[in-house]
């Protein structure tokens, strides 16, 4: 059943094809891929130089790789919020409901469609990261960064899809998605700043505590050599597990409540 959801799912197939079509229509596969790569490289380099105080040596440090996660955290909620609410707004959802697609196929297909972009960006970003930071090999932390970033995106996509399924309008779905993303991804780290200034935590402990709770803390814990040395790696992996479970739970909740939220009992207007 679960294999069929991934390998014989018309919605997933359609979503992936649609994204490939978008790339193709921009003028061939090479051009959009190059554009994506170039844009991401520019954004990334600008961000790490900004975070490193315009110091090229610091910018090359691995501790800034977490900005990569931040960029994707801003992209995924927007895509996921539109996956259901956007379809309903333009009247494309209803025709799908009268086909023989199951709720699981619809939801998993839409989810996978959202995840195509982060997956593409992560894969494309690897050579860009290697080139821009001029490291001689592909470090372990970066390799580990791929599942961490994907897990983060999956968790946020799941939460945003939940918002998309619950909200009646696309705008409300976007608002809730970005609100919850902020609460999940950024707020825990921001909260450690006053905690630290009040001497409740030291910086390393704060990061270790927030690592399983939010992707930013997770990424810092993963990539900061100082916290890594203090053994915060397990916290980062716990964060991966939390986000994957969050994604699965969100999808399961939507599928479980498909009828009242998105199916026959969801129609409220005559």
């Amino acid at each position, binding site marked *: 059943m679960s294999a069929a959801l991934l390998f014989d799912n*018309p*919605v997933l*197939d*359609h979503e992936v*094809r*649609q994204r490939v*079509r*978008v790339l193709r*229509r921009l003028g061939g596969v090479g051009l959009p891929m190059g554009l994506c790569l170039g844009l991401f490289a520019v954004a990334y380099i600008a961000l790490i130089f900004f975070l490193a105080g315009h110091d090229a040596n610091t910018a090359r440090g691995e501790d800034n790789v977490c900005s990569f996660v931040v960029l994707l955290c801003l992209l995924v909620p927007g895509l996921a919020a539109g996956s259901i609410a956007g*379809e309903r707004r*333009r*009247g*494309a959802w*209803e*025709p*799908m*409901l*009268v*086909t*023989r*697609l199951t709720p699981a196929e619809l939801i998993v297909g839409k989810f996978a469609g959202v995840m195509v972009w982060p997956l593409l960006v992560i894969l494309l970003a690897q050579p860009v990261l290697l080139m821009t930071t001029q490291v001689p090999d592909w470090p372990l932390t970066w390799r580990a960064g791929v599942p961490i970033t994907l897990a983060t995106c999956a968790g946020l996509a799941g939460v945003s899809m939940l918002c998309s399924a619950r909200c009646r309008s696309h705008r409300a779905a976007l608002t809730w998605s970005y609100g919850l993303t902020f609460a999940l991804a950024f707020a825990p780290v921001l909260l450690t700043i006053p905690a630290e200034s009040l001497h409740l935590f030291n910086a390393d402990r704060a990061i270790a505590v927030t690592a399983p709770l939010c992707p930013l803390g997770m990424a810092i814990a993963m990539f900061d050599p100082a916290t890594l040395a203090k053994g915060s790696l397990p916290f980062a992996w716990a964060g991966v597990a939390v986000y994957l479970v969050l994604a699965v739970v969100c999808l399961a909740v939507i599928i479980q409540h498909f009828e009242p939220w998105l199916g*026959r*009992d969801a*129609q*409220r*207007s*005559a």
Partner: protein
Amino acid sequence: MLDLVNLTKTYRDLTAVDSLSLHLEPGEIFGFIGPNGAGKTTTIKMIATLVRPTDGEARVNDISVVAHPEQVRAIIGYMPDYFGVYDDVRVWEYLDFFASAYRIPRADRPRLIADVLELTDLNVKRNAFVEELSRGMKQRLCLAKTLLHDPVLLLLDEPASGLDPRARIEMRELLRQLRRMGKTIFISSHILTELADFCTTIGIIEAGRLIASGSVEEIIKQTGLTRTLEIRATQGLELVETILRDNPLVHDVVLDSESDRCQVSFAGELDDVADLLKCLLDRGVRVVQAVESASDLEDIFLRVTRGQVA
């Protein structure tokens, strides 16, 4: 084919559809008429398994839409009044997606897509992007999508709304072709004159209640309305008037001597119309033309409804 028994839908204190009962035979074309907000779309959505009825039952081919919605979806084709299409999708890709969603085997899809494109006259647009199609073509594409899995019952919600006259005529011809193919069609529309010569039966709904249903003939009979006949004779309009006024089923006669025509308000059925014309011919009247007014359905609609909403 379709049985609705006391079908009801309420939204809090609003009764959108109130105890609607209906029976359609296979091959029947049912025109569903009513003012905006009367409950047409809600009724169609309940049959299409998109809205759960509050009370009552709807059965398609004796399958309950509440108990077995998946089985019902396999045998109905639903075309909503408003539908969206994906950008960056070609016509054949759009149809291929819905064919896969209806579990049509991959090997059969190219032939089926070609068939429905030919039926809807969209063959030349096979590789066009959906967003480039005109409104009429998009409507036909949606109908093509609806036909992919060869449904036995078609639910068409305002299929001609927003179309220009040419597109409307094309849509009407397409629906006629579907009728010839033996499809049972449940169609809602505001274009009453088009429904009148196309539907085998009609239903008029107002404020959620079905206030009249049956063939146009039956509704005329049920509601006690008269039909309007226009008779043209080359000479002797006075004689025509005398003969007409002698007939007990004739309510009123209005003469227009300039055009040699008279308008007859007639309470009989089609056989009675034939008898009336025979009587005129037997009495030596040279009848050139006898036409029943095409606006009958509009008259019925205006007289039966009061413009109330649910």
